[in-house]
């Protein structure tokens, strides 16, 4: 069983090597990339089933002793995130075949390496390996952004690379400080240390700061709406499903294990979460392209997940994990809708769009479902997710949090209605009438499928909720995870 843990890391890396060896066989290349990703989804589902009874599969690569081995482990949270990310990668690969992004030679190998880094970051149990795997994920993203962008990509690419490099430097410094203070970088050996050793809490704070930058939490969010909208929409969809989510996952894991959910930090986390929610959603009002609106909403939605973490009860953690999983799918669906719009109309600037609902009703369906789910309307998965977060906040009795969360949902809805009203209703602009809109199944299928997931997660969200409950229990009581990973 635990040997399967190597597949999400090694599979896509091997696929990338094969892809580099096949420069000209486009169809074969697509099949290799899709197969590698499908294998990761399959492994993710197997891991989800295996971890459902509290077992934690652990793999020490090469059977080295625990201190020197590269240790991979899966608990329900890791397994869920690997599965959901791989689903997004699969959707993006299909969409890239539709838009022609994958005709660039570097696209498929780079996205394979990027996804391998992300899966590895979810599975690793060691902060230094987490740093390495985050780098494995980020380096291809620099190239993908520079490769695929439209006008302004050089400037946005520089902002993105500089921010990421600064984040990585801070992260490495934090890991070094933590090693200096505690003499270990293994998560299992660090469990609860921040509550005993104040210096370890400070060093952990440096690590968390780095991940807050990578996860685009307010006030460190400014790079995301600058950099993301410049890349091609499929690449943005890929980034949205993987990059910032790894930062968020690391914050959840480190806060739960290293700090043991120390209540002394709750006010700080709640403040950051609320600020992210409000500032992200307000930023989306003032911008004029689909990708920019969606990028600002990423900042806002990350706030909801962090809110669930900040309250740190069983209900709120389960809500945060459910929210994270459904939001990754919904956000990718929305960005892929933007990709379809950009591919058919040549732009996603709202002022040059109109009449999409009549010209491509299936796209309108996909966007409508995903947008309503993002805003949190019943019966979609987003409603269930927001309801769970609100119920958890209600249990704690925090009225400020409740009010802000409801108001931010309302503004999110308004923002989605704005895109709908401008881009999907209204007149088809004259410039667009001459363009022959060709939307094949490869383009429309991924957003429809992901939107369908968002719809199904509402009425049929039970299994995911069960996984989220298990994952939350594992975060509240990390003893089982710690015992399995440390091998003691």
């Amino acid at each position, binding site marked *: 069983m635990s040997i399967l843990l190597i597949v999400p890391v090694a599979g896509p890396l091997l696929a990338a090597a094969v892809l580099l060896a096949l420069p000209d066989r486009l169809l074969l290349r697509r099949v290799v990339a899709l197969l590698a990703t499908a294998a990761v989804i399959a492994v993710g589902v197997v891991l989800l089933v295996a971890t459902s009874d509290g077992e934690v599969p652990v793999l020490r690569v090469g059977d080295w002793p625990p201190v020197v081995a590269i240790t991979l482990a899966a608990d329900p949270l890791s397994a869920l995130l690997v599965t959901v990310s791989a689903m997004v990668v699969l959707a993006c690969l299909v969409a890239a075949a539709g838009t022609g992004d994958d005709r660039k030679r570097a696209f498929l190998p780079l996205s394979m390496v990027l996804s391998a880094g992300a899966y590895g970051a979810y599975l690793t149990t060691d902060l230094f390996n987490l740093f390495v795997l985050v780098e494995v994920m980020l380096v291809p993203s*620099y*190239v993908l952004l520079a490769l695929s962008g439209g006008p302004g990509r050089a400037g946005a690419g520089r902002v993105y690379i500089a921010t990421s490099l*600064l984040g990585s430097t801070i992260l490495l410094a934090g890991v*070094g400080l933590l090693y200096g203070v505690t003499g270990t970088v293994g998560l299992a050996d660090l469990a609860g240390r921040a509550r005993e050793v104040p210096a370890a809490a400070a060093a952990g704070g440096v690590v968390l700061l780095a991940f807050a930058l990578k996860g685009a939490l307010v006030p460190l969010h400014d790079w995301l709406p600058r*950099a993301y909208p*410049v890349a091609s929409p499929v690449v943005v969809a890929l980034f949205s499903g993987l990059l910032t989510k790894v930062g968020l996952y690391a914050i959840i894991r480190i806060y739960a294990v290293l700090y043991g959910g120390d209540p002394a930090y709750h006010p700080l986390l709640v403040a950051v979460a609320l600020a992210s929610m409000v500032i992200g959603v307000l930023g989306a009002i003032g911008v004029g392209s689909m990708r920019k609106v969606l990028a600002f909403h990423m900042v806002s939605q990350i706030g909801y997940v962090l809110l669930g973490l900040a309250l740190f009860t069983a209900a709120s953690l389960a809500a945060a994990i459910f929210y994270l999983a459904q939001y990754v799918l919904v956000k990718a669906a929305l960005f892929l809708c933007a990709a379809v719009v950009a591919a058919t109309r040549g732009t996603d600037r709202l002022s040059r769009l109109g009449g999409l609902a009549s010209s491509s009703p299936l796209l309108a369906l996909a966007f409508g479902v995903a947008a309503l789910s993002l805003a949190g309307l019943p019966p979609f998965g987003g409603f269930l997710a927001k309801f769970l977060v609100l119920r958890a906040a209600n249990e704690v009795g925090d009225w400020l949090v409740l009010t802000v969360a409801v108001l931010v949902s309302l503004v999110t809805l308004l923002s989605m209605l704005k895109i709908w009203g401008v881009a999907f209703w209204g007149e088809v602009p004259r410039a667009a009438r001459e363009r022959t809109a060709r939307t094949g199944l490869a383009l429309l299928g991924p957003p429809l499928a992901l939107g369908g997931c968002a719809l199904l997660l509402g009425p049929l969200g039970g299994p995911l909720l069960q996984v989220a409950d298990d994952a939350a229990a594992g975060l509240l009581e990390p003893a089982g995870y710690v015992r399995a990973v440390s091998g003691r």
Partner: protein
Amino acid sequence: MSGPLIVGVLVAAGVFLLLRPGQLRLVLGFVLLGHAVNVLLLAAGGLHRREPPVDGGGAESADPLPQAFILTAIVITFGITVYLLRLLRRAARRGSRPPETWDGGPR
């Protein structure tokens, strides 16, 4: 005492370069910051002189783990530095461009 001093000087110089205009200074700033973090990692394992950490080195052997960290970090920093310089060269070859807005396009 030398460890904190070296880290401090390198970080100060790196941050100073990052805050100056110009792409090459940005790259050099990150190189210096990378060096600072490497010294910090080395200091995390202890800076005083000890036996080499080979078989039978005993209790007084140096800590090999931070050195392994640094090796990995150097490789990563080197690769990214080369990529940044390549981007810089590409921009330079295209000649002087009009100044870009904050994200390179109209809002």
